[in-house]
């Protein structure tokens, strides 16, 4: 790969895994200036690095802070890479709208899912926390995502997931998007009962589901 501007890709992966956000951004800038392809950087460095981070998390080698550090490095890198990706005509593999339901301000799980999806190259629209069913519907209409991710930590807020899916159906948008749900109190039986397409116990399963959706 010498001469294609990708010589610094291994150090870049290491920076992401170690959560060095500023260095990641700077390195990507250097690599782009050196002629590296934005799409190749994404596919050969950033996505594999975040895959490894996800594996470390699953294996208990990384914990939440390390995962967040890596995800921030990834985000910083994406800030630099995204304009180059867009101008090169490279397409994101898919788009996901995410949010924590009305009445719930817990966001770590949702953030982790968002970061993991971004790490897999998805375009993520994060609506934040305490999101009303109507706001979810608006966002689906506005962004046309392939996947809608709804998070709730508490038993007392889970019912808002059902409200959201119901309103999505009433708006005639249910068939346009796959709905995945997750959160500490959520269980697969609940997901089935409320008409969700998928229950994800963790961020990697959410990523895998989104991948399955976009690859058909």
């Amino acid at each position, binding site marked *: 790969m010498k001469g294609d501007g990708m010589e610094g890709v291994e150090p870049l992966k290491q920076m992401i895994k170690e959560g060095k956000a500023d260095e990641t951004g700077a390195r990507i800038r250097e690599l782009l200036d050196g002629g590296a392809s934005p799409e190749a950087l994404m596919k050969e460095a950033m996505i594999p690095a975040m895959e490894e981070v996800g594996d470390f998390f699953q294996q208990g080698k*990384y914990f939440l802070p390390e995962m*967040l550090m890596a995800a921030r490095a990834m985000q910083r890198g994406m800030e630099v890479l995204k304009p180059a990706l867009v101008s090169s005509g490279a397409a994101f593999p898919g788009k996901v709208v995410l949010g924590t339901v009305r009445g719930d301000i817990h966001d770590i799980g949702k953030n982790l899912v968002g970061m993991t999806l971004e790490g897999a190259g998805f375009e993520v629209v994060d609506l934040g926390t305490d999101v009303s069913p109507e706001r979810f519907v608006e966002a689906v209409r506005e962004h046309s995502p392939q996947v809608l991710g709804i998070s709730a930590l*508490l*038993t007392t807020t889970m019912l808002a997931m059902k409200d959201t899916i119901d309103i999505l159906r009433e708006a005639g948008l249910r068939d346009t998007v796959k709905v995945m749900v997750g959160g500490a109190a959520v269980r697969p039986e609940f997901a089935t009962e*409320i008409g969700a397409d998928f229950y994800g116990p963790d961020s990697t399963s959410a990523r895998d589901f989104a991948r399955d959706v976009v690859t058909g």
Partner: protein
Amino acid sequence: MDIWEDQSVEARKARWKALWDLEDLPRPVWFVPASPVLAATQMYSMQRLPIDELFTNREIQYEVSMTVNTAFEAMQRESYQDDFIPHLQPQMGVGVFASAFGCEVVFPPDQMPWTYPVIKAGDPAEKVYELEPPIVTSGLLGDVLDYARYFDEKSGHRYPIAMTDLQGPMDTAYLVWDSCDFMVAMYEHPKEVHHLMRLCTDLMIDFVKEFRSTVNEMVPAHFPPVYLPDGMGLAISEDVMAVLSPSLYEEFSLPYVNELSEEFGGVLVHSCGDFEHQIPALRKVKGLRGINFGVTETRFEAIWEAFGGEAVVIPHCTAEVIVADFKNAYEWVEYVLEKKTGNRGLALMVVPAVGDIHKTDLDIALGKTVDPGYADTPDFGRRIRELLEKYA
């Protein structure tokens, strides 16, 4: 008086004392938990009644707590015959200590109280130095002390007064500072994290002493709702440890936990989630009095092997399935009793969920009428006591 036969409050307190003293017990201690406000909140929520006033109105909180206690004492007499000691507890949610740093606490009618961080996502870490060191009446803490005094006086000192929700220094810091930024700051701004941890710890030490001087009998345990005699420790919630590496926990939390332990005669640590990886770090807690955990979230065998007989081990069951799954209360109680190697230092917190736990949770989440199996049944206490005898 045989303290293991007698059902008087004195006998039950003596049983708890024997537990904390790690005496060889004829059977494990067991209790059906009834934190009055939290129990009332659950009942109100199931009936879709507004719950905000339970937290914000002193008279309502008192009246409801007394009603819960009266009902609960009847169930204790008629069914449970367990070791629980009813208490009163000023309760305004998990954010009362965070509120002392300026965090806004919101009391929605249909949710438990929310706490907004005062150091928000993206704020510079140096903002911790702008925090005014709180005093024992800062934020909601002044109201907590007022509620405690009022409950104690109005009830004529009938019940011990349990500590308000005392999230440990790290759980509190995690509420004060945007949680994701706080975690990243452990790597990028360790000095600032320690600064906040110092402030949280100092506040807790001062507040617990003030609480103690406010009431006739303080029980320094907010959760689990155990009877912990004052002087034998302080219960703290350390839920953040479940998602930290052992090295970060040892660097950023352990020193402060040890300070609390030295100050109050030990610590009883509660955490949700799977924290088995923190067992080596927890062994470094000086004066670890006990550990409370969910048997579906952290393996009982691992905790028992590490701490059984050396600290009090208090398992309970939750619907969050991580390492084990149980259908109802009898199943998990029997599981624990089979695995224990003795009774020293074992206390079981048993919610009378005798129907299918997961179906019940599903029904609650879907807003359906709850399976009657979840409610108390007359023979619940008898069946638990039979299990205790079987595995004595």
